[in-house]
């Protein structure tokens, strides 16, 4: 597997809390994709971070990438119930463009009122 520490995890937090999801990868990559999947739908890209961007923000989302430790994280600030979903990190299998995306096992996040 390309992924080291990330196994399917389940997190349950209360609305308003902050949460961070982590993943590590074994194959060198310059781009990490974060996808979210809602029930009954396919995954959708929520943030993409490149190696020259140690941190990237999009609304309440914040992604980090540390190529030296081959790890990435996704944080959600002040989580809302609508953030309930499964979150995946993914990288390209090879350095060339258009290679397949390899996904981690995902984190199932439940945000309760």
């Amino acid at each position, binding site marked *: 597997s390309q992924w080291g520490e990330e196994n399917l995890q389940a997190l349950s937090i209360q609305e308003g809390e902050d949460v961070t999801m982590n993943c590590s990868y074994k194959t060198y990559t310059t781009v990490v994709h974060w996808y979210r999947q809602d029930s009954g739908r*396919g995954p*959708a*890209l929520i943030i993409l971070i490149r190696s020259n961007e140690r941190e990237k923000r999009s609304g309440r989302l914040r992604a980090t990438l540390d190529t030296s430790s081959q790890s990435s994280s996704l944080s959600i600030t002040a989580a809302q119930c609508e953030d309930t979903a499964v979150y995946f990190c993914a990288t*390209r299998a090879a350095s060339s463009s*258009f290679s*397949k*995306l390899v996904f981690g096992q*995902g984190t199932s996040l439940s945000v309760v009122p």
Partner: protein
Amino acid sequence: NAGVIQTPRHKVTGKGQEATLWCEPISGHSAVFWYRQTIVQGLEFLTYFRNQAPIDDSGMPKERFSAQMPNQSHSTLKIQSTQPQDSAVYLCASSPSDTEVFFGKGTRLTVV
């Protein structure tokens, strides 16, 4: 833009029957991917096409699975002699470049 369209959304087949899953990628996207998703295995890559040509089928079970892309507007995944372990959600995705991949809603295949 209707996104990636997959049909049918649900399919039930008897053990040993054939199942064909259809995918219509987003117009103009040059890459089409097929993935399989189960609780145990997660999101598994099966195969992908670029400009209709098969590029990587390293995830395809060799004997009963096949995929084709006869034209720019659709791709099919065929499973012969379906087995209960083939039960999964099959996801098709397309991409215009090496960045974002757009997924369809998937086809839930149940083999009974």
